[in-house]
């Protein structure tokens, strides 16, 4: 069928609808613009993708023919609605509109953040929640406590995480952080986190430097460690765990002051090889503050019992 520019115009309002709700469309055919349609009655019909659907046709203004269509319960997430006319005994598709359906965005869940101490970037991740079937954009939002400018970051290519650079953060002060999800049917926000970025700093583990038996108290040992780079200025609370190869479980020593750099502990068997590991966290960190990983294992064999 020759040039159909303007011959038929199809409108769907709204083009994006909640799944299962009604959709109304109209097709206006301007006969004189439809090359080849000059003679005979214009009979308009509709196809939803490849399924015929019935509309009601009436005369429109200025000699146009208009057909209206209502789909009571539109339950495709995406479909193409074609406006057709009879021509030379065949059904010609002369106009099309795309319909999308879905849900407003689900509330993003399980928002959690970690501050990387190498570059002080704050990386947050979340779960998107149930699929809304519609193009949905996510933005992480960050606000200082004086509600100055809202900054944040945008995940790339459908990821559910992004990193707020140091310049946009306010350290050592409460910040409000949340995720906002938006599509054509609405917006949803995650829980708002109220955290000082430092509280979620991810610490590297300490390094156990030396372990020795203290001669006169034969069942005691003294150990020394180095704290991870970039944590020298922090007050750290550390834990030590140790066990002999045949022990089922680790013995735990907590409440060690990180900055001290050395500690003593007693109650070890003689001539026994023990494995030691240590981990730390910021003392002032709130419940959110996470422990570092355990340090690499360091083995040490206590000396034999002195002959009485």
């Amino acid at each position, binding site marked *: 069928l020759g040039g159909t520019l303007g011959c038929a115009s199809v409108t769907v309002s709204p083009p994006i609808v909640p799944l299962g709700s009604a959709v109304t469309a109209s097709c206006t055919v301007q006969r004189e613009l439809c090359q080849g349609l000059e003679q005979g009655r214009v009979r308009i019909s509709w196809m939803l993708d490849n399924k015929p659907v019935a509309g009601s046709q009436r005369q429109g203004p200025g000699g146009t023919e208009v057909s209206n269509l209502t789909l009571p319960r539109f339950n495709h997430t995406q479909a193409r609605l074609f406006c057709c006319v009879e021509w030379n005994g065949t059904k010609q598709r002369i106009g099309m509109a795309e319909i999308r359906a879905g849900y407003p965005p689900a509330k993003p869940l399980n928002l959690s953040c970690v501050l990387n101490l190498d570059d*002080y970037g704050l990386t947050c991740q979340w779960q998107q929640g149930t699929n809304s079937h519609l193009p949905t954009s996510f933005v992480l939002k960050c606000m*200082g*406590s*004086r509600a100055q400018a809202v900054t944040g970051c945008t995940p790339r290519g459908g990821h559910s995480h992004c990193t707020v650079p*140091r*310049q946009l*953060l*306010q*350290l*050592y*002060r409460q910040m409000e952080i949340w995720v906002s999800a938006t599509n054509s049917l609405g917006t949803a926000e995650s829980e708002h986190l109220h955290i*000082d970025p*430092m509280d979620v700093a991810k610490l590297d583990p300490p390094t156990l430097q030396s372990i020795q038996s203290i001669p006169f108290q034969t069942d005691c040992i003294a150990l020394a460690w180095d704290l991870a780079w970039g944590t*020298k*200025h*922090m*007050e750290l609370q550390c834990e030590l765990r140790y066990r002999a190869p045949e022990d089922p479980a680790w013995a735990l020593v907590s409440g060690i002051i990180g900055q001290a750099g050395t500690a003593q502990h007693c109650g070890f068997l003689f001539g026994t090889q023990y494995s030691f590991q240590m981990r730390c966290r910021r003392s*002032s960190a709130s419940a959110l503050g996470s422990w570092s990983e355990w340090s690499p294992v360091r083995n040490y064999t206590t000396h034999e019992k002195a002959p009485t």
Partner: protein
Amino acid sequence: TELSGDQDFQLFLQRNLEFTRKIRGDVAALQRLVCDTLQLCKEDELLLVRQDLDIAQAPLEQCHRRTFQAETCFSQIRAGLRVYHGSLATIRALLPGHAGLVDTLQLDMANLSSNIQQQMEDLGLATVTYPTENQDPVPTFSSQFHHQVGGFFILANFQRFLETAYRALRHLASL
């Protein structure tokens, strides 16, 4: 104003004591760089040259134990942070390969200053809001050697400033 014992205030102090320690660590790192690369390490070898270098100094007498006054001390700390924020331009020019460390330091100083400002406002104290851009002119030096010695003393003075500010915050935390 009754400051001690206020739970929020204690949290502010704990956090910003650590922040000040971090900044002091970064300033010490810059001092080591000046020593390693420019061979300027001992202050007592540069006293004669210092006498005619116009080096920024920030007053902190309200933070000293004898004349301690919390509100003014906070304001003096903020004013000093601003002066040294500007002076760091001299350091960036001296250590072009370490601009990243200077940028981080300036970011931290700006954060510390706004943390103090917000805490003062929470306590109902009067505060000054500085324009974000720093208009103070960058000092010029008559020779490369004077420029280097100037940089040395900016860091030395800033380190002393931070020690005094740190002691004031620690004093408040112990009340």
